[in-house]
């Protein structure tokens, strides 16, 4: 155990010393994966190049989360516009409603929407509710639900885009038809609704247990959250015929749980203030200072063995 703590300290110390480089690079990589994902499902050939994904990723690394979301809305709408004007209008309206009613007010929490979609893409959706419950609390139910709806809706885009109006005058009718297909597609998707209910329960349970004043409450919360996910989805498969592979789900939950244990083990890195470079001056000198916060981790208690000679 002592060795594990030492490894943790070494990793955290390394991360802190290189944080000014590692953090933006990780941020850039996350945005790059998102824009590549949009490129894969997108329709606009001129926007599908890797250079576009690179450009947007660099921009999103620099700008604030709110503006990054607006950029994503613009990109997604443009992609769909190349395939169907009506669908693009409808998507723009839906995404703007989400933006105006949620993202604008809670930009940081909204990152969970993207995290949820990405987690589904990597077949690890169960990790996000565990993370949300542990670090963000019940407020994470909304972004997790939005992310789940978006993910389960993505396969329907192909069908909707195919619904084209033959004449311009027929466009409003077609728009209404697409709108109804979208609404029915969401309302009748039992897997999506079941997932949202189970994820909400997981978030609440993980949040409550993690705040209890008991030893290892955070780890217990992760374990119980993973258990609820498994039982919940098992019931979902049996009762509402949710389209989920049992073995895939089991391994995904297991990996999510292990990853969350690792994240929890290292989470103090997130708590600490960042490394900074600052410049200032006084009457005598100019100062260029690099500040790296010291990390004081709890060390394991030393065991003392008493050897008493007879």
């Amino acid at each position: 155990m002592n060795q594990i703590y030492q490894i943790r300290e070494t990793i955290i110390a390394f991360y802190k010393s290189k944080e000014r480089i590692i953090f933006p690079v990780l941020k850039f990589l996350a945005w790059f994966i998102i824009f590549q994902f949009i490129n894969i499902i997108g329709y606009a050939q001129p926007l599908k190049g890797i250079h576009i994904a690179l450009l947007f990723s660099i921009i999103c690394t620099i700008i604030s989360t709110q503006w990054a979301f607006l950029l994503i809305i613009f990109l997604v709408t443009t992609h769909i516009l190349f395939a169907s004007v009506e669908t693009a209008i409808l998507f723009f309206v839906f995404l703007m409603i989400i933006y105006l009613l949620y993202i604008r007010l809670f930009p940081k929490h909204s990152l969970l929407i993207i995290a949820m979609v990405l987690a589904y893409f990597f077949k690890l959706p169960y990790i996000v509710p565990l993370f949300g419950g542990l670090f963000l609390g019940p407020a994470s139910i909304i972004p997790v639900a939005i992310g789940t709806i978006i993910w389960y809706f993505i396969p329907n885009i192909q069908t909707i885009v195919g619904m084209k109006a033959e004449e311009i005058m027929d466009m409003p009718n077609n728009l209404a038809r697409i709108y109804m297909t979208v609404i029915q597609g969401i309302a009748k998707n039992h897997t999506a609704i079941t997932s949202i209910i189970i994820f909400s329960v997981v978030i609440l349970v993980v949040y409550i247990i993690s705040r209890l004043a008991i030893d290892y409450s955070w780890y217990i919360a992760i374990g119980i959250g993973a258990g609820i996910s498994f039982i919940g989805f098992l019931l979902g498969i049996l009762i509402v015929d949710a389209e989920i592979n049992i073995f895939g789900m089991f391994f995904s939950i297991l990996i999510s749980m292990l990853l969350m244990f690792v994240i929890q083990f290292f989470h103090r890195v997130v708590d600490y203030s960042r490394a900074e470079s600052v410049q200032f001056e006084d009457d005598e000198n100019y100062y260029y200072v690099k500040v790296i916060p010291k990390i004081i981790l709890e060390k394991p208690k030393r065991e003392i063995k008493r050897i008493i000679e007879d």
Partner: protein
Amino acid sequence: MIDKEKIKLMSKLAIYEKNYGSIDEKMNGYYKSDYVYFQNWWARISAVIAGFFIVGLFFLQKIFIEKIDIFDLNYKEYGIRIAAFILILMAVYSFISSYVNGKKYDESQERIKQYMEMLKQLDEHKSLKQEEVYKENYESDLSNPGDDNSFL
């Protein structure tokens, strides 16, 4: 000679100024009630725009799916319903926005308080240093037994 304590304090101040300085300065220009009131207007505008989008979708369904004749619509009834919906949405968002922005303002005030505390520490440190320098330069001379002050 570099004063390490001073550099530590100045670094902390510089970090604060770099990360929160401009945001907090902007917020501190308002009273809490004014800041929340001003931010609430943006929340209300967002809620109204989103509300009109939702109303638009509602009418899209009514007119093109349910095939309701727009000339036979009871405009008064629909008008009251839409107004009530928009007003409720605005009220809910004003409440949420008040909570969120009030919390933001309090956090900002707490940071400013800490910043002022650090400035005070820096001032105290400076005057302490000045005193030490003064003592080194002058008081040592006064205590010199070789001084002849008889002409005073």
